[in-house]
């Protein structure tokens, strides 16, 4: 399948960024196998992983001006109230999120789906980092592995991902 972006509001994003910063964009040759869910969704434990740069107020802000990025993540308690969270990032418009965090970090909607029994449980924490990371290999060796370990530690059955 040739890369395409029909319908995308900012077309040619991958090519544009990769041309400006060669080698900074991830490209995989192969897909990974579909992993089946091991239990019904209503009994499963869901986590949420986001590049939105959302973090609890009072935690160390992401380094949004480091030339190659910030390869750390923040654990965001899944029972958080949005008023106790804040955003540190420079690479996407936050006009919507500043009024309703759920447009990029839908923590209240996920809490509701859990309360209603649509989803069995939420992991104790969700996970957030910034998308501005210019070294894909370093990202895979460090940040991605660290988050995968954290997700596994919290016994997640499935993960909702949102690359902001």
């Amino acid at each position: 399948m040739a890369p395409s972006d029909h319908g995308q509001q900012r077309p040619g994003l991958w090519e544009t960024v990769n041309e400006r910063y060669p080698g900074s964009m991830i490209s995989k040759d192969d897909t990974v196998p579909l992993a089946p869910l091991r239990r019904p969704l209503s009994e499963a434990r869901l986590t949420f992983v986001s590049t939105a740069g959302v973090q609890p107020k009072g935690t160390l802000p992401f380094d949004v001006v480091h030339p190659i990025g910030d390869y750390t993540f923040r654990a965001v308690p899944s029972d958080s109230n949005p008023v106790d969270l804040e955003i540190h990032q420079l690479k996407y418009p936050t006009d919507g999120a500043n009024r309703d965090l759920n447009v990029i970090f839908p923590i209240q909607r996920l809490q509701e789906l859990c309360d209603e029994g649509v989803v069995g449980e939420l992991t104790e924490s969700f996970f957030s980092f910034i998308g501005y990371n210019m070294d894909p290999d370093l990202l895979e060796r460090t940040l991605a592995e660290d988050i995968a370990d954290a997700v596994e530690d919290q016994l997640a059955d499935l993960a909702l991902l949102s690359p902001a």
Partner: protein
Amino acid sequence: MSVTVARDVTEHVKPPRAVFLPFRMGHHFGVPFHTAAQRQIILAALDLVSTATRSGEIVDLPLRWADLRREGAELERRGGA
């Protein structure tokens, strides 16, 4: 499951399951206070857990940014979602 507004980036990264929305960056789950749309998008992504048949496939959701903006503005005008 990935929720993306950048189809081309997602085609390069190849997550096993993805839904694409033709929305602004930073607005993957729609517009402020439009809780029904936010919920719909999450449920569509969760649905892929059981319905996806091919890894790497990107599913288009039948939502339009212009519609959501209009509906969101109306919700806000009426004072709630």
